[in-house]
């Protein structure tokens, strides 16, 4: 008995050690509940659910769009962008998004995860969890996963040093794959925003990542053109 206890204890110790090491070496930062996030979610929860909602879901790029104005003929367009949000943060607030059984969700996320250095495999895993959540809790909702927008490296501030278009392209390739696997709509926004080198077109962005307000008109036009909305 004593030996067995010792063995279990040792095994636990080794496992804990390995686990801690693994955690450290991957170094995934899954935090999201900052002040801005919490006050946005507080608002979302206070707003009544409507029938036939069309949800724009994502980070600051989504939050910055005046979506209702861009789609004046579509009823109940709502902005569920949260500046700074990551895939973990979106997962954590999906209950609020899905409780209205929305008609459509337009999701754009991933760039803040990449900015933190989260490996693409982890980001894609979170997308799979998101897809499964939508499909199980609101099966009639049409989910559109939009490609992560290219960045303009030369224009980016230093805090974005972990971003590269190679990494974004790789991520988008995986996103397209899981969309095929799970029968979800994939929208490639690259043709709208990228120049011939695959960088975000200078004239469309403020800082290499965020969009100038008028760039949202091109985005909305694209969604109309492909009849997603």
């Amino acid at each position, binding site marked *: 008995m004593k030996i067995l206890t010792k063995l279990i204890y040792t095994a636990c110790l080794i496992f804990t050690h390995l686990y801690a090491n693994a955690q450290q070496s991957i170094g995934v930062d899954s935090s999201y509940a900052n*002040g*801005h996030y919490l006050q*946005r979610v507080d*608002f979302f929860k*206070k707003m009544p659910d409507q029938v036939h909602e069309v949800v724009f879901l994502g980070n600051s790029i989504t939050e910055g769009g005046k979506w209702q104005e861009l789609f*004046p003929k579509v009823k109940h367009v709502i902005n569920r962008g949260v500046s700074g949000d990551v895939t973990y943060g979106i997962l954590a607030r999906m209950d609020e998004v899905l409780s209205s059984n929305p008609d459509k969700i337009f999701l754009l996320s991933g760039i803040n995860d990449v900015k933190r250095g989260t490996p693409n495999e982890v980001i894609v895993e979170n997308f799979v969890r998101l897809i499964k959540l939508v499909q199980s809790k609101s099966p009639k909702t049409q989910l559109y996963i939009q490609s992560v927008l290219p960045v303009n490296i030369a224009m980016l501030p230093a805090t974005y040093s972990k971003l590269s278009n190679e990494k974004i392209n790789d991520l988008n390739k995986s996103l397209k794959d899981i969309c095929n696997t799970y029968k979800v709509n994939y929208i490639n926004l690259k043709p709208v925003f990228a120049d011939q080198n695959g960088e975000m077109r200078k004239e469309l962005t403020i800082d290499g990542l965020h969009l100038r307000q008028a760039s949202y008109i091109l985005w909305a036009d694209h969604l109309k053109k492909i009849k997603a909305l």
Partner: protein
Amino acid sequence: MSTIKLFFISTLCFCITNVFAQTVKIDSNYANSYYQQRVEYMRKMPHQKNEIVFLGNSITERGEWAEILSDSPFPILNRGVGGDNSFGILARMDEILAAKPRAIFLMDGINDQFRKLPHETSIYNYKRIIQKIKKESPKTKIYLESALPINEEMTKEPYTKGRNVLVPELNKRLKQLAEEENITFIDICPLFQDEEGKLKKEFTMDGVHLKASAYIDWVNFLKAQKYL
């Protein structure tokens, strides 16, 4: 009095005026890159009939007006520009008025205080905005809203310090202007300020801007007063 003496006195007067003019420096800048890209967008968007326009600075821009008012039969437009001031709003009135909107809810003021614009200048700009609306779109209903107080215990930026004390006087003059111009004045302050006239902590993250849910209270207030 001799001519020389007169000349001396008038020179003195001129000098005093000059010194005065220098102490009340007026910063009328507004066309920063953020402003320009917002206005570029506004100009590209088609006009709609019966627009209800929320006009102002970042406090207006951050409101999810269209969602909160999704039951409105009229299009809801956000015409807030982060950092904008009374000069900047005046300069973009053409775009707003070209649509002949049904109503305009105007809230501004705090950025004028941050740059220490004299109240006379702010009020004069407001007056020009109001008169422009009346002239170019006489059917537009104008709602002039009070400037919001701030909470300096929560702000970090030096330009916010000592400014909240200026807000009540500005609002007094705005109310007076609304009476002179025969338009509706809406005092928003009671909704969001504490008994000392500071922006209540529970409504703000940074002492200046409102949390997203505060706009629900704001809209409910406008509805209760039958302005919406």
